[in-house]
């Protein structure tokens, strides 16, 4: 495609079949799968919030409640070897990548069975096995890192993509644009997913961003972008499919702005005085990503109340097990203070 082709800065080129006018539809299995995965994140985060209140979790704890459809929909199109990297609001991403809720919760409580042996905490967890690259605490820093992971894909000549998530706040960091430039220059297979939850901590997008259409943030680099209803898991999945097709086709990066909403504060200590209770209430009632799936399943008679209750019970049991483990697992051995500073296989001392 000619570099000067302005069409590329329009919403993502649709490759393959056109999107149905009513939005993409899910099969019963897909609906149930999405329901189960989103519910797992919701229940996990609710319990994390409770445990924070009980003093079992310390420091920072950023909950993903409200945004579940984003990572869930994206992961529904991921294939073996695709990588995920995100910011500190990462619990949902880890669960969506298939990481064990016990290991995640135990990391939140700072126990030895946590994914980082208790040394990382809420914001810093990783899983090579699940291709989850963190968990990064500096706003925007994961964007060059994700771009580098995509660079490694291209270097190796595989067709994996790196899903690089960041928020509307991070979208104003300079390093994001440095990354955009290199990603497009070298046609790196990276899907930039802007989770626009409307608030960069306490500052609304309209107060922090000169251009609030984040899908257009790649325009000056000729990176296509698309705005997506991030509360509708079907729309997310469809957009993610288009984006991954684009990347796997060797076309370089693409931006998906997921329009979403976080119900909770920025972190546990956020009183959320910058928005009204009514605003939050309205989002919960009219756009809740989990409730949408639930209503579709029930109204379409694709699932019964009892089936959904069974899923709910199953999820609650999984979370209860994670909470139990994370509450009773031992703290790290004091000797762990000194390990993992340097890789022991390093040449020299």
């Amino acid at each position, binding site marked *: 495609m000619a570099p000067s082709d302005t069409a590329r800065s329009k919403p993502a080129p649709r490759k393959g079949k056109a999107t149905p006018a009513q939005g993409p539809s899910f099969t019963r299995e897909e609906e149930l799968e999405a329901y189960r995965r989103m519910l797992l994140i919701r229940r996990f985060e609710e319990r994390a919030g409770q445990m924070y209140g009980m003093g079992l979790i310390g420091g920072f704890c950023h909950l993903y409640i409200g945004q579940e459809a984003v990572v869930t929909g994206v992961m529904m199109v991921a294939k073996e070897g695709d990588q995920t990297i995100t910011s500190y609001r990462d619990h949902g991403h880890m669960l969506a990548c298939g990481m064990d809720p016990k290991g995640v919760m135990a990391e939140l409580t700072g126990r030895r069975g946590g994914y980082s042996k208790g040394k990382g905490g809420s914001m810093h967890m990783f899983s090579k096995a699940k291709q989850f690259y963190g968990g990064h605490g500096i706003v925007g820093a994961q964007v*060059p*890192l994700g771009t*580098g992971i995509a660079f*490694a894909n291209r270097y190796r000549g595989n067709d994996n993509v790196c899903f690089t998530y960041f928020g509307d706040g991070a979208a104003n960091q300079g390093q994001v644009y440095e990354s955009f430039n290199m990603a497009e220059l070298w046609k790196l297979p990276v899907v930039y997913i802007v989770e626009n939850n409307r608030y960069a901590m306490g500052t609304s997008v309209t107060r922090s961003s000169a251009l609030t259409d984040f899908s257009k943030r790649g325009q000056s680099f000729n990176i296509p972008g698309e705005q997506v209803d991030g509360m509708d898991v079907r729309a997310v999945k469809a957009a993610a499919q288009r984006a991954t097709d684009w990347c796997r086709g060797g076309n370089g990066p693409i931006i998906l702005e997921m329009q979403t909403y976080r119900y909770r504060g920025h972190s546990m200590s956020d009183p959320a005085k910058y928005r009204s209770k009514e605003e939050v209430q309205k989002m919960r009632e009219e756009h809740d990503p989990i409730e949408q799936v639930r209503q579709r399943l029930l109204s379409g008679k694709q699932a019964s109340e009892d089936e959904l209750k069974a899923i709910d019970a199953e999820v609650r049991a999984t979370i209860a097990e994670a909470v139990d483990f994370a509450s009773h697992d031992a703290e790290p051995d004091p000797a762990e203070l000194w390990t993992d500073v340097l890789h022991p296989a*390093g040449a020299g001392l």
Partner: protein
Amino acid sequence: MYCTLPAPDSDMATNVLMPALSPTMEQGKLTKWLKKEGDPVKSGDVIAEIETDKATMEVEAVDDGLIAKILVPDGTENVAVNTPIAVIAGEGETASSEVAPGSEPATPEPQPTPAVPMAPAAAPKGVPAEALPEGTAMVTMTVREALRDAMAEEMRRDETVFILGEEVAEYQGAYKITQGLLDEFGARRVVDTPITEHGFAGLGVGAAMAGLRPIVEFMTFNFAMQAMDQIINSAAKTLYMSGGQMGCPVVFRGPNGAAARVAAQHSQDYCAWYSNVPGLKVVVPYTAADAKGLLKSAIRDPNPVIFLENEILYGHSFEVPQVEDHLVPIGVARIAREGKDVTIVSFGIGMTYAEKAATELEAQGIDAEILDLRTLRPMDTAAIVESVKKTGRCVTVEEGWPQCGIGAEISARLMEQAFDYLDAPVVRITGKDVPMPYAANLEKLALPSVAEVVEAVKAVCYR
């Protein structure tokens, strides 16, 4: 293009002087004359090509006239900057005109070697601490060549090693460290980046997390401040934060510290900064042998390594063992000179002051031991303590700032681990506690000097 300065001269004949192509250039090769004696030239005509190990440049005439005489023939190496290389005669003069009389103290004879050679003449000890097999052949090479060879060897050995940075590929390296690598390894593995340090440092870290082994070149470490967050927060801390899961085998390398006459923003020594950070290894080679062996070790190391080079040292020549796979272990200091009266601890370019001082001190009857740290983190404290146990005195030498510097650290460690062996307080010789000034005299004052090292040694020896 480079315009030569006409020597202050008679109105009829002008000496063309060997130009300096960079602040650190002291000599170069006169590659080719494009004019011959008797040819007319106009101001702006290219009359010759000259070359250093960093670049090739054209010499322009700055006057109209005739090439009266060529003083330095084609192919002459090591022509010192400011040596007259030709005489341009004014209109009406003949091609046989002699050199303008009395204006130049230097003898305008063709000189295969410069009258004032560059620093390597101070013969480096260059004896690696590692025991080399008897009869190991040595080859003389510059630090620049040694670094390039180290990268090339490791890239041949391991397909995941690649280099990323500004001007590393097509330009052949801003300081010519990556010369030839693009030709051998191609654009996939020798990657020119935009000027975007924060971005490409992070990209390199991400690629390392994904299992590649990037060498990230900073044109100078001054620019790495833009990338500091990725170096510290992403590269250095991730292994720990991931409980040992996610390593980051990346090398950040490039020239560090003062070059010459480039002022405050381009002259900072970051040794102390990076040395402060757990999770990093910090390597500062002095000799070419160490530059090669340590860079190869750094590339193989599974940890992030900060590899601090020095622009002035790039052109220095040393003996390098001609062996299949010359590796120098990270974290081991080198006794550069054995002595019994005092220990001088230094590293990188600081070694040039230490070695010259030791020579002067020897003449004054003081036998100094010189320890070249080579690695600042992990620091070979045992080697320092061992030496001080023998000498009872210690002077540290570095170009960096004094507060919280490497000398301060060494001093503290000696207090903790060798207090009873000290016969005098440790003295630090450092760069002065000011931003680097531009003026030549001030810059010289801001850096350590051999005289300062000599005085400090005499002070701790109570002489």
